[in-house]
């Protein structure tokens, strides 16, 4: 069953690549949060109960509720609706994401002896999600899109940490939580400030600092 959730988690990245509506991106983040919660709840019975409790509660509260709520708030405040000016057309974007995801699936079926410590399926999808997120960051133009892709990358890393088939220290879980805190607090805060300061949410407007002559 958990494999089904992991596949769905990977497929959400395709939806993210294909759509330009930012509200749909936020909803995808929410779906990813719920899927991660389900993966935590079903797949990792080998972990001690307190680790599972921490992981599930953290995932549900932060990833499925708090972050989407916060992003939604920023979205309303900044009146951003679409990110239409990506460097690549959505069709090609979807195509490349599909190829990367396919690569992730392939990685999970290849038998590598040194991969015995990890769940290969989880590992392959997680890597694909991280790579797709990083790639999307480079081609999107809106600052908010970049924040959303950063969060999906964090989700991918979270899945990667779950793929290691041994007890990850609680410390690492706290680390993930801190990362998420950065994502929603600092990035969210900065997005609002940038919107106030520049009146726009385009990454292109953040290119004033350079080495050649510019106004001080």
């Amino acid at each position: 069953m958990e494999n089904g959730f992991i596949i769905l988690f990977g497929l959400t990245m395709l939806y993210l690549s294909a759509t330009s509506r930012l509200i749909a991106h936020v909803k995808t983040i929410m779906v990813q949060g719920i899927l991660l919660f389900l993966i935590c709840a079903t797949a990792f019975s080998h972990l001690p109960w307190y680790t599972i409790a921490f992981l599930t509660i953290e995932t549900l509260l932060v990833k499925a509720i708090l972050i989407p709520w916060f992003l939604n708030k920023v979205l309303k405040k900044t009146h951003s609706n679409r990110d239409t000016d990506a460097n690549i057309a959505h069709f090609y974007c979807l195509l490349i994401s599909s190829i990367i995801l396919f690569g992730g699936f392939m990685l999970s079926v290849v038998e590598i002896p040194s991969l015995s410590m990890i769940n290969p399926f989880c590992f392959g999808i997680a890597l694909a999600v991280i790579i797709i997120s990083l790639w999307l960051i480079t081609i999107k133009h809106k600052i908010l899109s970049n924040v959303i892709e950063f969060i999906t990358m964090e989700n991918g890393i979270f899945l990667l940490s779950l793929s290691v088939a041994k007890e990850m220290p609680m410390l690492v879980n706290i680390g993930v939580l801190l990362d998420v805190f950065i994502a929603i607090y600092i990035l969210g805060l900065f997005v609002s400030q940038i919107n106030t300061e520049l009146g726009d949410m385009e990454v292109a407007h953040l290119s004033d600092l350079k080495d050649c002559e510019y106004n001080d």
Partner: protein
Amino acid sequence: MISLVLLIPIVFCLIMFFAKNKTLNNFLINIYAILHLIGGLSYFYKPLQFFDVQYFSLNSSNIVFYLILSVVFLAVAVYNNGYSKNLKFSDKKLMHYATMLLIFVFSMTGGILSNNLGLAWIFIEGTTLASAYLIYFNKTKHSIEAAWKYVFICSIGIALAFVGIILLTVATGSLNSLNYVDLMNSAQSFNHFWLNVSFVFILFGLGTKMGLAPVHFWLPDAHSEAPSPISALLSATLLNCAFLVILNVYKVVIAANCFAYARIVLLVMGFLSLFITAVFLYHTNNYKRMLAYSSIENMGILAIGTALGGIAYYAVIIHLIGHSLIKASYFLTSGNILELFETKRIKSIRALGDVDKKTAWLWIASFLGICAFPPSMLFLSEFITVKAMLIQKHYILCILFLFLLTVILYAMAKVVIKMVFGEKSEEKFEIAKNNISKVTLSMYAPQIVLLTLAFVMGVYLPEFLDVIIRNTIVG
């Protein structure tokens, strides 16, 4: 003592939060800086008292980093006494500045003292949170751009470093710990493939924070837009924190006896950093950006020295100390110039020597120090690095190294000479003359002390320092 060093800033932040008093803020920052240094010095008298906290320790491998942080922080705290008088902001905003400064130093201290890779990672991430506000402190269009780039690029870098840590746990096999000592002890049994992959992720991730090319893009923007005392801390201490973690992981890679690949990656990133600096220094028209590029260059030298190994390790630690002391002085002096001329444009600053002789001499001395002019500590370190290259028969690398350093020296010398001795523009000269009262004694004294230390230690290295440098390499 460690508990105290880590608890005091939190208590002080609470006091500042409720008091919202400018004088009290400065007083508490100074007190913490002194206590921080005392904490470091007491290592030489009662080492055992430091092993009182489970996850933190002051040991032979991090004492040099801790002392550098203490000395630079003390210098910045003293400089800040004069600097903060010129800040025309509300008490609330100044309270935010002071509390974030303490949290920033607290995070760096935690990162240095952590004996656990996971915990060190958390503290390094904490430094991003605190310093982002400080970079954004002036709330201008440029500072928000710099802060955004800093937060975003570093967060991605740190996330990749976390992937590296996850892969390291795969490499460790049955070992269920991220403690450095445990990792070193079990290194022989690690899976070499995963260890190499994890090192690359950690190097690229934390290399972002350290400012190594090609993941350095945030650094010139953030260092140039932050207030000068913060730029000094960013360049002289924050980069070291990231380097310490990389060095600790590299030691594990060496202990596992699979460092050939890691060595190449370090060398490539090191030389790329020198190359990027040499190219970009020619085009920059902002003297704080020039200093930021110089930091990238020096981080590159650290990476090259680490990759070379052998006697170059000794050079790395000497370089680390020298760079931190001189670069802190350089950035603090750039703060004086900014106060005087109210601009960061190199072209607008001429005849610095006629405006303020002390600042001009500090600017020149810092330049000579950073360019490894004898008896600067950096001369010693770069000389040993070159010697290590020759011993290991890397002749082409040696020529490339010296060539890039010469290009960088020329680019910086051109700027510094024009700024100090160039023909003055009456308009800018008048502005600077009117601002001379803003630069008080506390804005000269720290640089004089830092530069004296850096030049004296280039000739005479006290025995205790020599011992801890050697222990840092071994530990």
